[in-house]
């Protein structure tokens, strides 16, 4: 992963993308583990796949940002590495998949827990620019990697 070349992205782009994710997740949460909620969760899973594999620059949200918003607001003051937001997309994909599996399997508790996590994380990322997964990344590594 660290051997692949870095790609610099417009940080405003993935925040817009996170806001789109947040709106979809919030609506899915209010719909509950019904047919509408399941369809919306499946849409979220599909939207996360390009961001989690290639990176946030490959998502439909970033396509919309580049063509609809970026031309109106001009070039960004700074750019950022694509790695932290790609990691965030991977976390989002995991949460959305677990929520979807939970809803289909009839466990609405699993659906609500993971959809609430996804809603809160995308809200923090979109509104405040805080990447929750990135904050917890080192802690995660510390607990999952055994001491040498």
């Amino acid at each position, binding site marked *: 992963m660290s051997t692949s070349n870095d790609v610099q992205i417009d940080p405003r782009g993935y925040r817009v993308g996170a806001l789109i994710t947040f709106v979809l997740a919030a609506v899915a949460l209010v719909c509950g583990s019904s047919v509408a909620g399941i369809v919306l969760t499946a849409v979220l899973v599909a939207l996360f796949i390009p961001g989690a594999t290639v990176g946030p620059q490959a998502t439909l949200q970033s396509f919309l940002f580049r063509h609809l918003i970026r031309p109106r607001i001009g070039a960004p003051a700074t750019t950022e590495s694509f790695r932290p937001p790609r990691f965030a997309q991977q976390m989002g994909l995991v949460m959305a998949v677990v929520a979807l599996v939970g809803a289909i399997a009839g466990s609405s508790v699993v659906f609500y827990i993971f959809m609430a996590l996804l809603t809160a994380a995308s809200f923090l990322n979109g509104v405040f620019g*805080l990447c929750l997964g990135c904050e917890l990344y080192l802690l995660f*590594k510390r607990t999952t990697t055994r001491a040498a």
Partner: protein
Amino acid sequence: MLVRAIALVALLVVATLAYLWWNRRQGVVRQVEIPGALTPADLGAARGARATLVQFSTPMCAKCPPTKALLVRIAAEYPGVVHTDIDAEQRLDLARRLDIMRTPTTLLLDADGVVVARMNGAPNESQVRSALDALPPGPDYSI
């Protein structure tokens, strides 16, 4: 559906409060006393004659590159102060030993390599300067 909408609003309120709490703590300079010095071998880099800013980063940290730029720029203004950046993912031993929980975390070492202050999260310029200004004065000679 109304109950779920109310639960959603409550979730967002809690998330916002958690963010505000997190943001207030970000970069705050805490004077600490950690016994024992960090040697150049521990750091994998030379120490400054007066002080060393040791930044812990990871590749998944969006605020680490701008923090590094800030610390390098300020360190250059202070004679005898150097900055070093450590990939915490590669140095989990050091991250555990120094209890690094989040990135960026910046430790300030004195001339002997003893940790005297730490800043958890991305600091702003005045926080970095206040940490450096709290150091004992450097050797009273100049070149």
